[in-house]
């Protein structure tokens, strides 16, 4: 399936939650929506799920030569941000009910359920009432509920929240399994390390707008301010000498005559090297790439200095 979102906007009363956001997701991709609370991620998700309609813009879905101007419910698996099932009913009853609503026969629902309960080590507890489970296990049941009917598109709003690191890793494996099964996944999350492992494409948002978009590599290339370079000299060079160079924005001394340099805005690597070479002979030049967490913080600092601080 392919999802094309074009310039969608959404306002609630006087608050502009989403402003002209566009993106495209191809079949079998994992797509991450990133951003601080209130960035507009959940609003986009609710529009995709069909709970609200965009004020402007369009959502187009292509699936098996069919085209839709919304995401059809039958293609969708959804883990809402505000989650919960029936606490007085067993895991099995909860899952069976949702699977039946999705149109599965009882036999296929039981078969799918057995598979996913085993994946999450919940087989033994299938008859336990939901309220008897820990928060983490309830979260796993909710994840199973979202994929039991093998949807073409799975939308997971904060799938890692409330989980310990071990269970977060299990969710990573779970998402990789979904991808392997050919499902397209949209997730919103704050756990950058997890997203970095999983996402094929990502969209960084702030105040309802797109800040950065693309693959991790593309985003790293787009985030000019974070370009860092590790350099080494064969003779003594001081920090103040380096700080005086217009191509350098920041200097962090490492071991003897080795430094981590942050390049100034819109300065090319070649220009920087031209300014460094007169100081001493360069023995090491290594471009550094920022991880997603750093990129995220840098992007947010630019957009919302008070949030990042």
């Amino acid at each position, binding site marked *: 399936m392919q999802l094309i979102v074009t310039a969608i906007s959404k306002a609630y009363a006087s608050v502009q939650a989403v402003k002209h956001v566009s993106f495209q997701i191809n079949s079998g991709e994992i797509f991450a929506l990133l951003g601080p609370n209130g960035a507009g991620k959940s609003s986009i998700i609710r529009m995709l799920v069909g709970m*609200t309609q965009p004020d402007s813009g369009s959502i187009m879905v292509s699936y098996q030569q069919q085209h839709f101007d919304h995401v059809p419910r039958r293609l969708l698996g959804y883990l*809402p941000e505000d989650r919960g099932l029936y606490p007085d009913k067993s895991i099995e009853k909860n899952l069976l009910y949702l699977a039946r609503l999705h149109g599965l026969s009882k036999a296929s629902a039981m078969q799918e359920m057995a598979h996913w309960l085993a994946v999450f080590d919940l087989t033994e507890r299938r008859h336990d009432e939901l309220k008897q489970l820990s928060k983490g296990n309830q979260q796993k049941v909710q994840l199973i509920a979202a994929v039991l009917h093998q949807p073409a598109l799975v939308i997971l709003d904060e799938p890692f929240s409330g989980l310990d690191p071990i269970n977060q890793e299990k969710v990573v494996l779970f998402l990789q399994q979904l991808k392997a099964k050919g499902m397209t996944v949209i997730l919103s999350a704050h756990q950058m390390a997890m997203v970095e492992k999983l996402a094929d494409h990502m969209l960084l948002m702030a105040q309802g707008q797109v800040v950065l978009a693309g693959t991790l590599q593309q985003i790293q290339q787009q985030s000019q301010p974070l370009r860092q370079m590790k350099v080494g000299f064969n003779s003594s060079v001081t920090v103040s000498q380096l700080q005086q160079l217009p191509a350098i924005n920041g200097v962090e001394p490492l071991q003897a005559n080795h430094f981590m340099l942050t390049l100034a805005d819109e300065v090319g690597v070649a220009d920087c090297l031209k300014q460094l070479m007169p100081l001493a002979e360069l023995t090491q030049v290594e471009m550094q790439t920022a991880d997603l967490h750093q990129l995220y913080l840098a992007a947010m600092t630019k957009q919302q200095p008070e949030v990042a601080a």
Partner: protein
Amino acid sequence: MISRQSLIVAHWEFLRFFKWKQQLISYLLMICVMGAIALWSYFTDESRQTYRIAVPVELTLANTEQFQFQRPSINVADQLAQMRTDDSWHAVVTEDQGQLIVHTLTGKKWLTQLESVLQQHYRQQTAEKMGLNAEQLNQLEQPVTISTRYLDESYKGKDTPEKMIAMGALILLFVGLTTAFGQVLTSITGEKQQRVTEQLTAIVTPQQWMDGKVLGHSFSALKAMLTSGLVMLLVYTVVSVFAKKAVDLSWLNISVVLWLIPFALLGIVLCASFMGAIAASIDDPNNSGKSAVMMITWLPMVFTFLVIDSPAGWGMTLLSFIPLTSFAAMPVKMAMVTVPWWQPVLSVLLLLATVYWMRRVAGRVFLRGMQMYGKEPSWGEIVRWALSNKTE
């Protein structure tokens, strides 16, 4: 009209509040309780015993099944002593200046019956003193009989079994609506608080969800009505058995009972849809005044009850055609007067159309209410949504 998804929701909702084991246990308990009450009242019934009563020699009282009146030759003090020591007497009656005094050990239920026998005796004596014979006294004691003859042949009469059926129908509808009220409110607001709603609405449309809820809880309400109806019949049967009367169900008008089913079903669905719409607009039931509005659904029964003694009057006729009240009024009217066939048919059709409209309103209110995210809509907004055409 009703999708498969709605039926799955209805099945789920019905079973959410229905547990076979508990239901059976409650039936058994009910039967046990009624049996225990019947046995207790049988074994403690003092009227089946015979009591020996000492009366003054001049008191010529005839014995009854319950009381043996004896005139002992010993004096009153000795009679009282005997009563205290060897139970020779259950009571000793003395006369003092024209007033009868009953002496007994302690308070007993049969004393009331004894007083009644003594009073009857005294009335007879007074009548004799006044020169009245037994027949004249009997006539004097009989209340004047006033009978009313109704020229309208369709009216089946006042205080008839038909009125009992009508009252029974109103009581059952009240039971059904009370059940639906509790369940719809708990189910919808509870689901919102448990955060299930967002998950479900990604699977089914708001209309399918609301249809399922309304149907599920309507079936629960009908089940409660059926249970109450059976309990009423059971109580009637038990009372008849213990009163040594034959169990007579000939008063049960099957035609009216059969008509009651579609009216009750549609009425409950109509009210459950209305309740669903209100419940869908409630964010937090603990801090919302809207749940009280759901009690409006009891008004049809109250209005009908107020005109139950004029079943052919304009009030009842009006109520039996207005779809918001007809589910209560028409069965009552049918129980008490003979109505032409087209009246219940027209009434059902109007009710059916209103039910269809109301379920759409409930679906719309739920859809829009869900998009408010924690903010409770105003009455103006609810009315606007109800009148809009948006269902998705």
